[in-house]
């Protein structure tokens, strides 16, 4: 429990950590969705390619947009980019830094999906079973082109009656899966090497600008959070004063319209204050009615100047 709280607090402490956390969660979600998703290749000549490539590329685009939407910093960056200059200059290096860090984080989940898809192999088998060269496989070599297309399209479906007992089906399937996994591992290797090189070589190029950009992008983020919190606090104080002012004006009105004995002692000051001069049912009803029909104006300057 303590460990959980510590991890939670660590992630919340820094906005970059929060974003890393979200990015990791999206990557895990993408793996989970892939495993839950019931992949069923249509096994028809033109539909296979559309379905296979669709499943490989459309979900990553969705995850990319999700990554951009869920990242708070993308809003901050857009606001910084589109704000009028005013008294504060705009630094394009900061905006570029923010943009690149947002994009990098948003790309993680799509890449995870694509790599998992390739390593699993089903998508590529479905998409490219019709494009395999039939001459290489004994079972498909001696049939008419149209029939070959039909048979090859049915390769991803193990239980289909046309290809159930065809030994070349497994050969084609293994062949395509081998290509798919090779492609998957190659892409993973290239990406990791690229990331490694980028991180290693970055300090050699323009380290000062990078440090400045990172500092000011954190600053803009924190400034916006604090502004929102201050506005919340201010609206709470404003509401408090406004309501007190409303009760006070009701009390004045009651004093004007009712005949009251002058106060005798200082006995129950506290009780009196809490009741705010409203001491019977009609007065309470009138107060509630006034609250609905005539809300007080949004102006507490008389209260603060008292």
């Amino acid at each position: 429990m303590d460990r959980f709280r510590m991890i939670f607090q660590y992630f919340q402490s820094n906005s970059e950590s929060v974003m890393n956390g979200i990015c990791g969660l999206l990557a895990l979600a993408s793996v989970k969705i892939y495993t839950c998703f019931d992949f069923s290749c249509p096994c028809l000549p033109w539909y296979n390619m559309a379905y296979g490539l669709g499943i490989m590329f459309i979900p990553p685009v969705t995850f990319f947009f999700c990554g951009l939407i869920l990242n708070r910093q993308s809003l901050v960056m857009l606001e910084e980019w589109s704000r009028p200059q005013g008294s504060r200059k705009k630094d394009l290096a900061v905006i570029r830094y923010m943009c690149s860090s947002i994009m990098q984080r948003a790309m993680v989940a799509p890449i995870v999906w694509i790599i998992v898809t390739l390593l699993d192999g089903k998508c590529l088998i479905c998409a490219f079973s019709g494009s395999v060269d039939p001459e290489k496989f004994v079972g498909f070599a001696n049939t008419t082109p149209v029939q070959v297309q039909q048979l090859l399209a049915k390769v991803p479906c193990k239980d289909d009656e046309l290809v159930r007992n065809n030994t070349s089906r497994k050969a084609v399937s293994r062949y395509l899966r081998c290509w798919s996994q090779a492609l998957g591992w190659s892409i993973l290797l290239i990406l990791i090497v690229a990331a490694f090189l980028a991180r290693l070589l970055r300090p050699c190029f323009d380290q000062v600008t990078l440090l400045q950009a990172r500092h000011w992008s954190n600053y803009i983020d924190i400034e916006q959070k604090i502004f929102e919190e201050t506005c919340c606090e201010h609206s709470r104080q404003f509401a408090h004063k406004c309501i007190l002012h409303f009760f006070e004006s009701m009390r004045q009105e009651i004093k004007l319209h009712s005949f009251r004995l002058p106060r005798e002692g200082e006995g129950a000051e506290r009780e009196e204050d809490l009741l705010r001069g409203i001491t019977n049912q009609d007065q309470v009803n009138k107060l509630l009615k006034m609250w609905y029909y005539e809300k007080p104006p949004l102006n507490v300057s008389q209260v603060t100047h008292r």
Partner: protein
Amino acid sequence: MDKFRMIFQFLQSNQESFMNGICGIMALASAQMYSAFDFNCPCLPHYNLAYGLGILLVPPFILFLLGFVLNNNVSMLAEEWRRPRGHRGKDPAVLRYMFCSMAQRAMIAPVVWVSVTLLDGKCITCAFCTSVPVETLGNTSHPGFSQGEMKRVLARIPCKEIYDGQELIANEVAVRYLRCISQALGWCFVLLMTTLAFLVRSLRPCFTQAIFLKSRYWSHYIDIERKLFDETCAEHARSFARVCIQQFFEGMTTDLAAIRCHPPRKTPADAGEAIEKLLGITDQSTMNSALKNWHRCKPPLHLQHRALHSSNGWAGEEHPPAHSPVPRREMAAYYSRV
């Protein structure tokens, strides 16, 4: 338990976080409801379409309305919309902001339901199995059925056990075809929704940022003001009730003392807190009368001003006590004589 409480506290800290939490819970609930739901295609020609499309479209509508119902801010929006103008102007931008943010959150659970339904494929398979292109997928050499007979056969595609058209078109082929179309539709729908959300979120700062900041501030203000007003009224009601009950006991003891023709016993200054708390009622019959009066004849909702100023309550009576009361333990057996 502790973990649950911590998550709960985090969500409550901020009003928007709380709404996001409810929205996430509803999305998870909708996915869970779909998986728990036992889908049973009727496998009859016209019923299939009605059932399939009904399951696809009616629960999202219900979830959308539920999203509004569970949102506390709906009553706030309605109140702000309907109130008379009074001294305070009404800003339509604030109302629009509140409505948009509620509608956006309420849309999430229906979108999740529709996506999960389409990606699973059962609904579309059930709804459109009679529209499968038999010429391209099936055996063209099969003796032709009549239109009605063909529809009847095709309608049984989702129900594998009773399907009798294997020579016409293989069950697996038709199911794979329909499921492929359904999943493609599902992913396109998810992509469309995500793109829309992205566009809405990213274009807003470019166009209406100042108005957005203003509307957001005032909508938070209205919410906080309403909560603070409720708290102030609750506090007032508590004080009102306390004074009213105090006056009731005082009034009652004074009346009883007047009936018995002896002055009320004024508690001496050093009597101790316990004696004071007895409010002058120290025997069984007085207590019973107090309770009876409370039930039969509740005091009016009108506090006496004089009584507010003297905490002892015996206003105007300045008789010295006849004798200092000896505190004694009374075991009062309360029995009802109603």
